């Protein structure tokens, strides 16, 4: 087990290297640069800026320079958010995004699983149709519609919760963003759980469990859910990576100082180092959560062997 985890993390290093390399050159292929503003800077200023940020060197030299700094744990300065290093931006933004993302993830898994089970046990009855209908709705309505709607209803009309802002992380400010972020995920988890549960409840070993007069809880949760949860687990890994690294839409609409905004802004502004930073952070999250999924799989299903 320990050896397996070590091995997986070691293989992550070449993966990350390839991702970093690919991203580095791809963003440089895009036309324009961080200092190409609407109104062009003076040639002298431009030259100075390029020199300071090493943009006057040949590309391969810049690449090696970046790699060298990266190896020392230095993500470099942001090109657009002056006075901040990329590391500083993430240090302040990532915890915020993780709080919202983790809340949404937990909510999605709990609510989605419960709804999925309820739906599966009442297959083709009104409850099932209702839940499936809502889930379909949840998948179809985009977050940029849900977010202002929730903000309007609960923040403005009812006044129960703040309509936006972060409020230094007070819980009331987190509710609406978490719910917004969780809704589509609840819908997906519900559908996954429902499908897997229906199949599990029809399997022969569930028939055995029922034939042996076991309690409904034992039949449904101990026996059926344990095998039905596997597809949810494999979905939850990448989903967790996506949620925890922030959402542009939710963070922008609710005005939350997370890292989600950086993806888009950095790319649009050609903020080279910040783009690289976000790529690396997301890659690490995906690698780690895929590992977690594999470990969970082995934990749930004894037939899975790590190796």
């Amino acid at each position, binding site marked *: 087990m320990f050896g397996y985890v070590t091995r997986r993390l070691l293989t992550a290093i070449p993966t990350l290297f390839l991702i970093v390399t690919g991203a580095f050159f791809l963003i440089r292929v895009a036309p324009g640069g961080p200092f190409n503003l609407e109104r062009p800077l003076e040639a002298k200023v431009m030259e100075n800026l390029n020199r300071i940020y090493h943009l006057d060197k040949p590309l391969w030299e810049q690449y090696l320079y970046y790699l060298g700094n990266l190896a020392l744990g230095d993500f470099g300065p942001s090109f657009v958010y002056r006075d901040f290093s990329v590391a500083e931006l993430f240090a302040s933004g990532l915890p915020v995004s993780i709080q919202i993302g983790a809340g949404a993830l937990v909510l999605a898994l709990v609510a989605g699983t419960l709804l999925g089970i309820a739906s599966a046990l009442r297959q083709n009855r009104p409850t099932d149709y209702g839940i499936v209908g809502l889930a379909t709705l949840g998948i179809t309505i985009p977050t940029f519609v849900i977010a202002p709607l929730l903000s309007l209803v609960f923040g403005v009309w009812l006044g129960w919760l703040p309509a936006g802002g972060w409020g230094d992380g007070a819980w009331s400010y987190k509710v609406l963003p978490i719910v917004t972020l969780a809704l589509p995920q609840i819908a997906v988890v519900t559908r996954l759980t429902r499908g897997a549960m229906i199949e599990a409840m029809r399997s*022969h*070993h569930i*028939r*055995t469990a*029922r034939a042996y*007069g076991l*309690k409904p809880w034992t039949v449904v949760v101990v026996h059926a859910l344990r095998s039905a949860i596997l597809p949810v687990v494999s979905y939850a890994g990448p989903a967790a990576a996506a949620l925890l690294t922030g959402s542009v839409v939710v963070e922008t609409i609710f005005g939350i100082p997370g890292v989600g905004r950086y993806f888009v802004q950095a790319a649009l502004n050609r903020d080279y180092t910040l783009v690289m930073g976000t790529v690396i952070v997301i890659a690490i999250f995906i690698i780690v959560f895929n590992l977690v999924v594999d470990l969970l799989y082995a934990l749930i299903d004894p037939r899975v*062997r790590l190796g």
Partner: protein
Amino acid sequence: MAQAKTTEDSDLVLDIRGLVVSFATNDGEVRAVRGIDLAVRKGETVAVVGESGSGKSQTMMAAMGLLADNGRATGEVLYRGRNLLALRPKALNAVRGAKITMIFQEPMTSLDPLYTVERQLSEPLVEHGGLSWKQASARALELLELVRIPDPADKLRAYPYELSGGQRQRVMIAMALANDPDVLIADEPTTALDVTTQAQILDLIADLQKRTGVAVVFITHDLGIVRRIADRVVVMKDGEVVETGATDALFAAPREAYTRMLLDAEPAGRKDPVPESRPIVVGVQKLGVSFRIQQGFLKPPTILKAVDDVSLTVREGQTLGIVGESGSGKSTLGRALLQLLPHSGRVQFEGRDISNADKAAMRSIRRQMQLVFQDPFGSLSPRMTVGQIVTEGLLVHEPSLSRRERDLRACAALEEVSLDPSVRNRYPHEFSGGQRQRIAIARTMVLKPRLVVLDEPTSALDRTIQKQIVDLLRDLQRDHGLTYLFISHDLAVVRALADTIIVMKGGRVVEAGPAEAVFAAPADPYTRELMAAALAPVAAG
């Protein structure tokens, strides 16, 4: 074999009266069981016999409250005076799994793959017996000893996937006996097992019944088993009981035509011998197939010899029966011979060496050598019409044929397997297992092959259907001079079809020779064991 006792009603443990089971389907209500009566007395063995679709399983599923969601049961299922059909779930759960228990046809999937044997054996003990988990696992160990599993302490900690089919069925039996039940319902418990394992499981059930006095309801389509273990027989057809009586009496003098037909369903007849002068179609010398099994990182792989040093010769018009239990390598041999698996040794087809020939070279030969599979449900694409399935091979081997010509060929092939050509526009799911197997045979016949490898083509079918397929195969062979390789674990079918047989065990041929000679005087102890297990119950009567 205990005689059916004449007993008073107080001895009744399970009394089914006027049971009707119906299913709501898209085509309206389907009645699977149409008002049957069935009584089970203390300590007796009742066999419920019928073909698939006769409602024999659904009767018991209804009694146990295990019908599918769209199923509905009316009538009465009385256990000690209480109607199980009317009980609330909680009260029903106190009976099922404790006093009425069940073992199933599918030992491979009836246990939860995610929990240890210990946990699953303990569950009913904790639930019904009021034991603590600790006491339950001690009792579970005793139960495994009772059902004579080797290394019971190890098996207790094992997961189902680490056990063989026979061992899993033993675990199920242990589970069934855990709470000292009054009735054990065994739904085709040996159908999915090898013949020798089958015999062991039957002996075990009979022995445990003697020791515990449990009544056994044995659902089966295999009359050999019925004769061996049952006190009374109930024959079902289309959801109704057609005949019931003491086993000996019923076997000696069946009253109903249907019962007589079932009794007569053993594949009969022998194949006409083929003269030695016929040309050799398949010649195999020292064929071997081995698989590398990677056991983990950096560990050297172990080599499993699935087929080891097999040589054989089959002449035109002959049938070679390849007999053995699961894992004996018989299917692997068939596949290697068709060049579907890499192998060592030499394979000659009509005088040409085709050993490990490449795909391109094989393409022209493939047409001559066809394969029919065991599973008539899985081997036909559900999204193609029967006509498309039958003619698909022609698209590859005779691309120049027009659509009309292909259609004509399909009609001819379907007629040859006694199906109405009009079925070619329908889809496989509309057909029964026997009809699907006919379609699969038509698919091979349309190419006019020289050699057909039949991999357990009858084992998923009812005996009466088996007999028809055996007759069909024999007719086709006679009419077209076909050569068969018939892979089977079913000795009765092999006997009816084969000229020569080889018996395989652990990848090796343990016995080979003309079918009659091998059946009359098996030389190898393993062959004798196989024959004893498979043919004894029938021969005994």
